[in-house]
């Protein structure tokens, strides 16, 4: 059983890795070269951030129990879906361009608020990783906001697609703010981001961008027990498929290098 801090660090790492993996799926499939490269860059940022968090988590896991021999790779490639703590929105399928950019918009605005708070975390290593990641995530927010505006305030078809994506994705935005049992303790110790404050930033930014995109902001998404909570390892069906592909090589050929 991991300590709350390790679990929280894994949550931050898993969010970055799984979203990074989704972004990387566009590599070679982008509608135009510049956007293909943009998504590959976003993927690179995410996977780099994930590595920093995993390295820190592995360090803490091994300090608590040297027999574990955790590494960034073992944490990424050898855990099962139930041991991943990423939010659902990171694992949702890419769908079309509208769904991809809308997901990235919701997610990057959320991370922006989380990382900003972590800058002042009592845990200096989390603060250092967030400082690095924040510079990058600001770009993600800018890129995805531009797409939401361009599609929403674009042609009839682009708007229709964006609204359809909104129907698919909005439902999962509530789960971003569902907490884990240890959050209260970590917030009190000034380690973790306070999700209520994150929500305020998120909602304000979404309202601002949607206004420019001429789309109405739906009422806050409800969370229900049946929907699960990624923070507790309860995921949508999609995560299993991602892991099956991402982890295949290390599972089939343990320790393989090239």
């Amino acid at each position, binding site marked *: 059983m991991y300590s709350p801090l390790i679990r929280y660090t894994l949550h931050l790492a898993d969010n970055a890795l799984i979203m990074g993996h989704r972004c990387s799926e566009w590599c070679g499939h982008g509608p135009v070269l510049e956007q293909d490269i*943009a998504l590959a860059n976003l993927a*690179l*940022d995410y996977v780099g951030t994930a590595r920093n968090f995993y390295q820190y988590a592995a360090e803490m896991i091994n300090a608590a129990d040297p027999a574990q021999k955790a590494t960034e790779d073992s944490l990424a490639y050898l855990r099962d879906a139930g041991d991943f703590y990423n939010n659902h929105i990171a694992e949702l399928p890419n769908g079309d361009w509208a769904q991809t950019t809308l997901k990235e918009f919701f997610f990057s605005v959320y991370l922006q608020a989380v990382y900003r708070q972590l800058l002042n975390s009592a845990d200096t*290593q989390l603060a250092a990783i967030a*400082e690095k990641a924040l510079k990058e995530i600001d770009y993600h927010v800018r890129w995805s906001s531009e797409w939401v505006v361009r599609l929403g305030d674009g042609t009839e078809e682009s708007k229709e697609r964006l609204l359809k994506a909104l129907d698919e994705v909005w439902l999962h935005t509530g789960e971003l703010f569902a907490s884990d049992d240890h959050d209260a303790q970590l917030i009190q110790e000034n380690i973790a981001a306070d999700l209520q404050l994150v929500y305020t930033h998120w909602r304000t930014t979404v309202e601002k961008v949607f206004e420019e995109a001429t789309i109405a902001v739906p009422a806050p998404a409800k969370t229900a027990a049946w929907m699960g909570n990624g923070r507790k390892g309860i995921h949508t069906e999609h995560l299993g498929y991602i892991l099956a592909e991402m982890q295949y090589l290390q599972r089939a050929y343990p320790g393989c290098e090239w």
Partner: protein
Amino acid sequence: MTSTTQHTVEFIYAILETVADPEVPVLSILDLGIVRDVQLKDDGFHIIITPTYSGCPATEMIQLQIRMALLENGIQHFQIVHRLSPAWTTDWMTEAGKQKLQAYGIAPPEKKFAIPEDGVTCPQCHSTNTRLVSAFGSTACKALYQCSDCKEPFDYFKCH
């Protein structure tokens, strides 16, 4: 340890000056500003580096090159220490580095364009009548531009 004590921190810096950024080989890692400090400790030299971008694939290549350059120069006792905070910024790039970039055909970071927009100075003809094509370029550190006067496409090294 005798080999280490004979060498000075200045000598280490001189070696590091020969290590090029693998993605922009015209820049040394000192020009780039990723070497934050070199310290002589009991166990040898500590070379403190700060990676440019979290996912920059060049970081590991750079470490390998530092290692090789030091070994080639007879430095055996050293370690490369990663420091994440304060985060790397293009403010740490040297003036010489910015001039080398410009001569190489990459527009150096400009404070005015902290967020890439139209108007970055073209490294070929120095026109500011330029257009942002994409905020993401061939590597994590660059954005893609086109000059509306000389028509040349060019990379802009983003402020970070």
